[in-house]
């Protein structure tokens, strides 16, 4: 592990004052630990994408196709016509700098090109040179620059050093959204076949098997069965977990990491507790076995390709509506893209809780609700018997994931659940939660091992806020609703903070949920004693 090379003291020395001038050549240094490896040819080919063969970003010569400039410029012209966001954002930035120190990657690295305004200028300068009169005539004076191979390298470095978290867009007086810039910048790079493997491989897996991890149906079944057995040991209850069951009321969509990694897995046990206890008639789908969608980090076309299976399976299985579990970017796709790309979902019904009768009118078109919305409604109506003391070993804080906060506004539902299921809950400082929440530093397909230094740097502002509540309130558990958070925050918090674990909201719900016929619980869903051991 390359993290051994770094210490918090060393990585924490950051100067946020850029040099007086940026007239250094546009050549990023592809230093180990700060970039992701290129997409493997087999994955590019599987998805029908252009492949540049075997190459790595640190190489001097990049294998650009002969007409690469034409491809990029045509791609830009095409996207300026297709995305009003891009057309407007290219023109209206006044470089007021309000976004500058809002980016976790800038705060954690001090690299001035990680200021959102500068990241956008990397694209804007080329836009000026080829798409505006002033830029064509005046060149550098008008802030324009030629499209050179160095520019492509710079784009690659910095567009894969943005997690599309949209925090900057909260602070921008015009709502300029760097996620749009980065998404379109990555689309342009992908036109040349310059992708990263941590995105392309999950996407290829997802296209083939239905999920990012490439779990084939029998493995999907086995992993779920394993969880059922584990839950039986903990609660004494054997829960039903139908897969591909036709005519179920609800199709239940999870991020596949929930049945594969920890601490996701404990959250998965929490879902099973809840769904069993209320007797919901639901089914998994072994094909729609992933709600997550790395297409979001690749191209708008890829979003659609990977997302199509969800409505298709809902239709095939004849369910009434869909519930989605805890995940961040998955929910950005489900909330802001799915209905547009693969809807209309007129074959489904408007979600209605069979337990409380609540009609989820806000999802009347997409017909898919978040499990936290569903569970918060159950708790509000007193339909769940809860014993929050079972979570008493935890002093909990809540980390809003970027996408559920800034692309959905689902802020209070998880908090309502947490307040009901645990006795010790403390918020992090207000500049670091809700719409101002800080990214884990590993989102948008950058959560790979080779990129560890940059992930640790990007996660610094989040970790710093966790350290604050740890020192102040003794927080020892960070709850969240995002699979990428669960995969990457443990490493981040171990490095910067120490002694704080990561859990899903529904893991804590599952701990507190008093189930009918359960045996006396002595352990939590992690199979750890319910009370903290002394010493």
């Amino acid at each position: 592990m390359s993290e051994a090379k770094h210490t918090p003291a060393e990585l924490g020395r950051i100067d946020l004052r850029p040099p007086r001038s940026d007239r250094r050549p546009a050549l990023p240094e592809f230093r180990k630990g700060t970039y992701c490896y290129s997409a493997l040819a087999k994955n590019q080919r599987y998805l029908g994408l252009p492949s540049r063969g075997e190459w790595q970003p640190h190489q001097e010569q990049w294998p650009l196709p002969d007409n690469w400039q034409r491809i990029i410029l045509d791609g830009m012209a095409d996207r300026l016509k297709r995305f009003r966001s891009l057309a407007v954002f290219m023109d209206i930035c006044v470089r007021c700098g309000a976004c500058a120190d809002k980016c976790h990657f800038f705060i954690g690295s001090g690299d001035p090109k990680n200021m959102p305004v500068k990241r956008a200028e990397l694209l804007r300068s080329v836009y000026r040179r080829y798409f505006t009169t002033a830029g064509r005539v005046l060149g550098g004076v008008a802030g324009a620059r030629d499209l050179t191979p160095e520019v492509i390298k710079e784009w690659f470095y910095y567009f894969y050093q943005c997690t599309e978290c949209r925090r900057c867009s909260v602070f921008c007086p015009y709502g300029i959204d760097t996620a749009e810039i980065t998404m379109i910048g990555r689309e342009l790079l992908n036109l040349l076949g310059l992708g990263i493997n941590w995105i392309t491989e999950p996407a290829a897996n997802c296209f083939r098997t239905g999920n990012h991890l490439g779990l084939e149906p029998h493995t999907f079944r086995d992993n779920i069965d394993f969880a059922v057995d584990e839950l039986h040991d903990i609660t004494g209850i054997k829960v039903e977990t139908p897969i591909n069951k036709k005519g179920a009321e609800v199709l239940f969509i999870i991020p596949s990491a929930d049945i594969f990694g920890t601490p996701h897995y404990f959250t998965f046990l929490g879902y099973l507790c809840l769904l069993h206890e209320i007797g919901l008639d639901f089914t998994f789908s072994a094909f729609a076995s992933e709600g997550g969608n790395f297409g979001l980090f690749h191209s708008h076309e890829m979003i659609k390709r990977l997302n199509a299976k969800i409505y298709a399976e809902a239709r095939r299985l004849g369910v009434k509506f869909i519930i989605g579990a805890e995940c961040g970017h998955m929910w950005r796709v489900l909330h802001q893209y799915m209905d547009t790309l693969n809807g209309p979902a007129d074959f489904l019904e408007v979600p209605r809780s069979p337990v409380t009768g609540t009609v989820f009118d806000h999802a009347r078109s997409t017909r898919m609700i978040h499990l936290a919305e569903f569970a918060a409604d159950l708790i509000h109506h007193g339909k769940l018997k809860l014993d929050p003391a079972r979570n008493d070993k935890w002093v909990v804080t809540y980390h809003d994931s970027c996408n559920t906060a800034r692309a959905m506004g689902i802020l209070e539902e998880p908090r309502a659940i947490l307040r009901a299921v645990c006795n010790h809950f403390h918020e992090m400082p207000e500049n670091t939660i809700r719409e101002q929440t800080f990214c884990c530093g590993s989102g948008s397909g950058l959560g790979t091992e080779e990129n560890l230094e940059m992930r640790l740097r990007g996660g610094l502002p989040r970790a710093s806020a966790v350290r604050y509540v740890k020192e102040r309130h003794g927080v020892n558990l960070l709850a969240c609703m995002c699979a990428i958070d669960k995969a990457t925050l443990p490493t981040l918090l171990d490095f910067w903070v120490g002694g704080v674990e990561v859990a899903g909201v529904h893991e804590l719900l599952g701990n507190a949920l008093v189930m009918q016929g359960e045996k006396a619980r002595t352990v939590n869903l992690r199979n750890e004693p319910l009370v903290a051991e002394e010493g």
Partner: protein
Amino acid sequence: MRAFTALLLVAGLVGIAVAAARVPALGPVVTVALPYAAVAVFLLGLVVRVVRWARAPVPFRITTTCGQQRSLPWLKSQELESPSGTLGVIGRMALEVLCFRSLFRNTRVRVGDGGRVVHGDRRWLWLAALAFHWSLLLVLTRHLRFFVEPVPGLVLLVQHVDGFFQIGVPELFVTTFAITLALAYLAYRRFANPQVRYVSLVADYFPLFLLLTIVGSGILMRHFAKTDVAAIKELAVGLSTFHPRAPSTLSPVFAVHLLLVSVLLAYFPFSKLVHMAGVFLSPTRNLANDNRARRHVNPWDPDVKTHAYEEWEHEFHDKLTAAGIPLQGAPPPPAAGIPLQGAPPPAAGATSQGG
């Protein structure tokens, strides 16, 4: 260097204006032809720019939500931060355009020892920006007294309120102070804040220096250099009624003021100043967060190859059987193009891709 380039450009324009004021033959050019041309370029340029933006569709509803969504009835939604409908959007946009809501959130971050990230409120940018833009609006309104006869009551009212403190003759306007201070701070900030300095372009310094010079020449005319106000009013009314008459003499200060205003107008549509119009078209702000309630249609919905269930079942048929997962029912392999009951047809041109 970039600031210097911008300064040179503005100084050059001032030089041209002063020189032109000395050549009587150029009087009509500076006072009539140039203003008309500038206004024409401004209007036409802005229309072209806005039409170009508006012709690009909004394929996805990508609202940036800055508050609680409308979901469950017992959870209070924040309609101005995460609007669930048109009314909320109007409110959100009004706050943004009139009060610079987002800028008001501004913080200043520093990283202390051991990577301790400290956030502090930072409202100076918001204050200066608000002071500048509102002052500019009021100053422009006051200027209508030159262009319209009789002067409308609203203009007189603005002028009256603006000169409330009645200091000096002619009285000093509050907005004169406000706009000067605000512009000075914004210029100072571009130099003093290393982050802003790093990203600043010539195109950022130029309009600042241009505006400062315009304001300065205005102050000079009102309070220091005696200017023939009657002649200027005659010119302005002539221009606005399309019966322009160039004044017989042209004071250098007025020439500078007028020429720079003309340049500003003509420069406007081709510069970052179009943020004035663009802010209304920003899709992260002007769309409701009602994604799951109302379907948003993308006019260029991409036609892509998706993976049909039948192909998937075909590839994993044996594993599905072994795992006891129910199959669709039809014996494999399903022929592409023949949709199975209750299932969507495979995507056009879909073929089974071996793993």
